[in-house]
């Protein structure tokens, strides 16, 4: 048999050294059988080698390191894993709790604020003013009617801010799962 083909088989066998001898011999024998079959079909040793591809890849596929493409260690893969867990970890610890708490708090405040403004306005119309509910800037306090409009405005703004935070939370969760999918594909493809 051609020396290059023998070298190929040697390489495969070397990588498979962690397997039991009987299994290793069987694997190499099977690849050799196909090599000879291909040669018999008129393929040159170069064509046979080209067809079988990288011996390391073939051998490692047996070891189950990676079933298909990139069996070798790659910095790109390591980088992707680190960046994913960095992203998800940091996000999970800081971003997610913050945005979700803010979202809920802002939306509740956004609802409560106009209610308070309305309450003061109604009591004011009934003849009782409660300055405990009100808007004050420095020493200057707004009356019942301007307070009502200010409350509506602030309520809407708070609610929108809360809503935005909620959207941000959802967006982050989605982006984490998207990245995870990307990572999985990198691992198996």
């Amino acid at each position, binding site marked *: 048999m051609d020396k290059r083909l023998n070298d190929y088989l040697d390489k495969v066998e070397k990588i498979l050294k962690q397997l039991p001898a009987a299994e290793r011999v069987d694997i190499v024998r099977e690849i050799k*059988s196909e090599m000879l079959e291909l040669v018999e079909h008129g393929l040159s040793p170069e064509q046979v080698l080209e067809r079988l591809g990288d011996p390391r890849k073939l051998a490692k596929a*047996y070891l189950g390191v990676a*079933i298909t493409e990139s069996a070798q260690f790659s910095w790109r893969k390591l980088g992707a894993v680190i960046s994913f867990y960095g992203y998800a970890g940091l996000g999970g610890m800081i971003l997610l709790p913050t945005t979700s708490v803010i979202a809920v708090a802002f939306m509740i405040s956004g609802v409560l604020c106009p209610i308070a403004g309305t309450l003061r306005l109604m009591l004011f119309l009934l003849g009782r003013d409660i300055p405990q509910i009100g808007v004050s800037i420095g020493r200057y306090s707004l009356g019942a009617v301007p307070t009502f409009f200010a409350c509506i405005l602030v309520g809407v703004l708070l609610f929108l801010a809360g809503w935005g935070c909620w959207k941000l939370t959802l967006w982050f969760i989605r982006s984490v799962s998207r990245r995870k999918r990307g990572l999985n594909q990198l691992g198996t493809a």
Partner: protein
Amino acid sequence: MNLEEWKSQIKRGTLEFCILLLIQRKPRYGYELISQLERWPMVATKESTIYPLLRRLLKEGCLDSFWQETTQGLPPRKYYSITQQGMAYLEEMSAQWRELSQAIAAMEQGGDEDDGQAIE
């Protein structure tokens, strides 16, 4: 969105099924399986995928293997045959596959919950 990625996922998911279907008819050897699969580009597969997969199916008890001498002066070949367990697995897969193709056929014809009877 990425057609090649989609195709390779389908290939990955159906390869076991294809191999068992081929071996079920008669015992076959690795290169024969590869040449058979090469007839259809959609399932054409390389050595580095087929051989490890065959080994896994052996270990899982779906396949048996035996070495056989050839007559025309070729080296001995390693043949794979299907076991009872492999047959049971294959039947299960076939049933699932039929279900999937029926579902897809129905959706292609625009069948949905409104005209569900048409599928029956």
